């Protein structure tokens, strides 16, 4: 399939969403239902890959592009996920000119606080999925404490958590979540 068409279809999906997997219905409609370029199984696999790798979950679109057209499709997917980010620059230029306006400061503060609330709401389903046994709950709690009360690098906390989990499974002290 044409590189430009894949890029434009994926771009349409990313431009019409503002977080995570919100573009999923559009992707499914365009690639699975209308054009039959992807199966539901491949789309599911792409979603799991997006969740299992570092970075944003929205990168499942790169896997979608890969399934549709190999490496060129993945490049189209990458371009589609990074293109909308450029839109933040004119917004930033505008907002910086107004940053001394107390109303703009208040609006930004309200958006940051509301974002924290929205993120907390999104954390709950992730927690239910990720914390399926006591050792994983302890790992999450320890990570929280380390990230708030120490200046340890997040990378080392993540790596430590992964290695601890691996060690616990190998020692037979933890079973893998089903």
């Amino acid at each position, binding site marked *: 399939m044409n590189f430009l068409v894949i890029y434009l279809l994926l771009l349409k999906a*990313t431009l019409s969403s503002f977080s995570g997997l919100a573009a999923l219905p559009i992707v499914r409609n365009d690639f699975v239902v209308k054009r039959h370029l992807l199966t539901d199984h491949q789309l599911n696999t792409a979603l799991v890959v997006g969740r299992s790798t570092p*970075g944003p979950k929205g990168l499942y679109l790169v896997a979608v592009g890969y399934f549709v057209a190999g490496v060129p499709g993945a490049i189209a997917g990458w371009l589609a996920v990074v293109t909308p980010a450029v839109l933040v620059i004119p917004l930033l230029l505008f907002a910086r000119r107004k940053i001394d306006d107390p109303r703009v400061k208040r609006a930004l503060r309200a958006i940051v*606080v*509301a974002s924290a609330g929205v993120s907390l709401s999104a954390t709950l389903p992730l927690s239910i999925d990720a914390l399926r046994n006591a050792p994983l709950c302890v790992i999450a709690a*320890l990570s929280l404490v380390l990230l708030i009360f120490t*200046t340890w690098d997040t990378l080392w906390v993540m790596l430590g958590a992964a290695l601890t989990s691996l060690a616990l499974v190998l020692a037979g002290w933890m079973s893998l979540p089903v």
Partner: protein
Amino acid sequence: MAKPSVRELSGVFLRIGNFTFGGGSATTAALQREIVERRRWYDTLQFGLCYALARVTPGTNLFAFSAASGWLLRGWQGALAALLVVSIPSCVLVCVVTVGFDSWSRNRFFEAAIAGALAASVGALLASFWLLVRPYLDRPYIFQTMLILAGSIALSFLAGWSPIVVLLLAGIAGFFWKEPTK
């Protein structure tokens, strides 16, 4: 506040952006901790500016946040560098994992390590929540903060409203709602 070189900036976005599990929010939280708390490259207000604008930009919030932060710290070069280093390695990894997904997903070691990293990402998300809200829990903001927080949780979690609608409503409320003087 000393601004970083493009190289330093790229190093941080490369490291945090490509090694943090748990999605864009967890990665943004890790970047916030690194840039605001540890390195003090910019302050809470500038972080709030990048974060808020990234949330209302279509597409992947983390990439918009990276572009905004890079631009604020080092102009176009910074924006481009941050966007490229935060996205390319992760995308390459997505391709590699996609290719070998069937065998990787049945690998016990891989699964165990991912389970631990995802558990840590829950901790990172909760830490992020605290770091985001903490600056606004002082007087005279506390009442507004608590109300906006409760409202956003109720609308997004209980009522199932789209995040963008909740954030825009919060922005409008903040714009018109003057806080009481100290």
